């Protein structure tokens, strides 16, 4: 019997045993798709978290320092950081206030107004798209200048050039000297994206020393961002800043905290590792259950097939022909199941990624193929095992199977 004939026979057998075929495929499909989806979810979560940290910028140190009735430490901290030399790339207060921003008839009702140093952009991972950044002298000399976020600029100026224009912030006139590159380019996407775009790009940054002009709103300087030069420098700077702050803040009257994004990433990684292990475990169980399903259905049909094998042998089938037929049969079922499983896993992953993080997540190729290979091998082994066993019997014994 030729391979083509064996193939035809296998296809005929698959088509005429639809329930068995579907049940076997189902085991493989569920196993493969579950592994792909669960692992992809971890991936999606990780990359959405990493993306967040990347926008924040690496080696970012957040400093919180407050003391009842204490003096503003902003300029002390600024000078201390300058003294750290190469360790630190920049330092800025991270104070925020609200207020109406106006240009002619155009208004931003709830723009985020940040009061920062000339290093605000470096510390918060902004780059200048147009015009210039704030300078040391702007800060020192209480210059009424500002830099706009991309969304704020577009909203106020309708895509016209804002550089050199006068706007009013909380009633005070300021000159626009620069515009930042958008951090979250709006793609007209979902709510979360709109919010991010508003939060990070609908901003106005003014020298923190200008707080004196904005006496109508209450501004506290208790939060700072320090940008370190490297990951090693981050660790060192965190230690140094903490000991510096301990000399400045009386623990009975105030509070300070220094922590780096790197530490957060570390903690996030740990969380992701745990999540991977838990979901990976669940995926493994799904694969195992799928595998047991494949085994079950293959073994349940053994008796029925043993008799069939007896008939075939009585009619002159050689052992080899029977094993080849069953090998092709279970191979085709397993492969088709594996491919459907991969496609289903891919589809669910893409849909979930879009719904949960608005990201296009692709499942890991090696993992998908691994899960598919596992199911396919299992399907083939348990597909030919009964055939190999029954084809070794005397035909009369195989025929006796009820």
């Amino acid at each position, binding site marked *: 019997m030729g391979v083509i004939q064996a193939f035809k026979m296998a296809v*005929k057998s698959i088509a005429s045993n639809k329930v068995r075929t579907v049940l076997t495929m189902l085991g493989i499909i569920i196993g493969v798709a579950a592994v792909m989806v669960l692992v992809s979810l971890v991936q999606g979560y990780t990359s959405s978290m990493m993306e967040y940290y990347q926008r924040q910028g690496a080696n970012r140190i957040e400093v919180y320092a407050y003391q009842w009735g204490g003096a503003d430490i902003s300029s002390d901290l600024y000078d201390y950081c300058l003294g750290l030399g190469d360790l630190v790339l920049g330092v800025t207060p991270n104070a925020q206030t609200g207020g109406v921003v106006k240009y002619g008839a155009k208004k931003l009702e709830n723009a985020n107004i940040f009061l920062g140093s000339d290093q605000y952009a470096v510390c918060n991972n902004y780059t200048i798209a147009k015009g210039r950044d704030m300078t040391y002298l702007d800060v020192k000399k209480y210059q009424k200048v500002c830099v706009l976020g991309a969304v704020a600029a577009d909203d106020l100026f309708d895509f016209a050039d804002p550089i050199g224009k006068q706007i009013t912030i909380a009633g005070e006139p300021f000159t626009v000297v620069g515009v930042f590159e958008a951090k979250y380019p709006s793609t007209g996407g979902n709510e979360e994206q709109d919010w991010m775009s508003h939060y990070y790009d609908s901003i106005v940054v003014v020298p923190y020393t200008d707080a004196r002009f904005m006496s109508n709103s209450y501004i506290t300087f208790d939060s700072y961002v320090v940008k370190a030069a490297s990951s090693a420098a981050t660790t060192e700077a965190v230690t140094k800043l903490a000991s510096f702050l301990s000399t400045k803040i009386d623990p009975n009257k105030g509070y300070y905290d220094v922590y780096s994004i790197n530490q957060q990433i570390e903690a996030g990684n740990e969380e992701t590792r745990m999540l991977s292990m838990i979901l990976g475990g669940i995926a493994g169980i799904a694969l195992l259950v799928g595998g047991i399903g494949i085994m079950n259905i293959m073994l349940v049909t053994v008796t029925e097939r043993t008799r069939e094998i007896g008939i*075939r042998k*009585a009619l*002159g089938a050689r052992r080899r022909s029977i094993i080849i037929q069953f090998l092709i049969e279970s191979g085709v079922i397993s492969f088709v199941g594996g491919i459907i499983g991969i496609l289903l896993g891919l589809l669910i992953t893409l849909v979930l990624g879009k719904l949960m993080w608005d990201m296009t997540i692709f499942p890991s190729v090696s993992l998908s193929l691994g899960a598919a290979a596992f199911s396919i091998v299992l399907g083939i082994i348990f597909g030919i095992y009964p055939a190999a066993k029954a084809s070794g019997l005397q035909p009369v014994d195989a025929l006796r199977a009820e």
Partner: protein
Amino acid sequence: MALIDVRKVYKIYNEGMESEVRALDGIDLTIEKGEFTAIVGSSGSGKSTLMNILGCLDVPTYGEYYLAGSDVTELSDSQLSRIRNREIGFIFQGFNLIPSLTAIENVELPLVYRGVTGSKRRELAEEALAMVGLEEREKHIPSQMSGGQQQRVAIARAIAAKPDIIMADEPTGNLDSKTGGQVMDILRTLHHSGSTVLLITHDDSIAASANRVIRILDGRIVSDTGKGVGD
């Protein structure tokens, strides 16, 4: 040289144990080409065991079996498959059709294993189905046919590859007397056209169709009407 030559054949289950069963207890038998032989015995007499060994579906515990001169007990599994495929056509009491295949596909099976392909195979299968009067039922699967029709498909399958020997184990056992009669008519026709027919039955009236009747009891031949090739 006899077509079938069986010498001192034993089939013993659980040999040496208390539960030892001698299904065949020293059978000597020769059957010539072209004979129509009935092996008659009651249930448990060993007649089916004998047919299974003669049909190479089973192997004897002891003894020699020469089929057309070659010693079957020496043959490999694939050589035995070749004999079952080319030399022997089986008709079983329980039909033993493959339920998922149509009538014509069932009839084609031995031809498939013989390596006959394409239109030649279809032609032989159609010819065999026409011989049993089932050309109209080609595309039916076994469950869509009556017992008599299924048995005729099984006969068509047995004769499609034109084997020298037809072996039928209680071929009328599951059929009413009318359809049973039709099946016997087909076997007689096959005999007339030159086939060697071996019929296993417990029913003396069925055995009466044969030219030679061998009676078997407790695994031994107790009577043999002797050879007779003609009518």
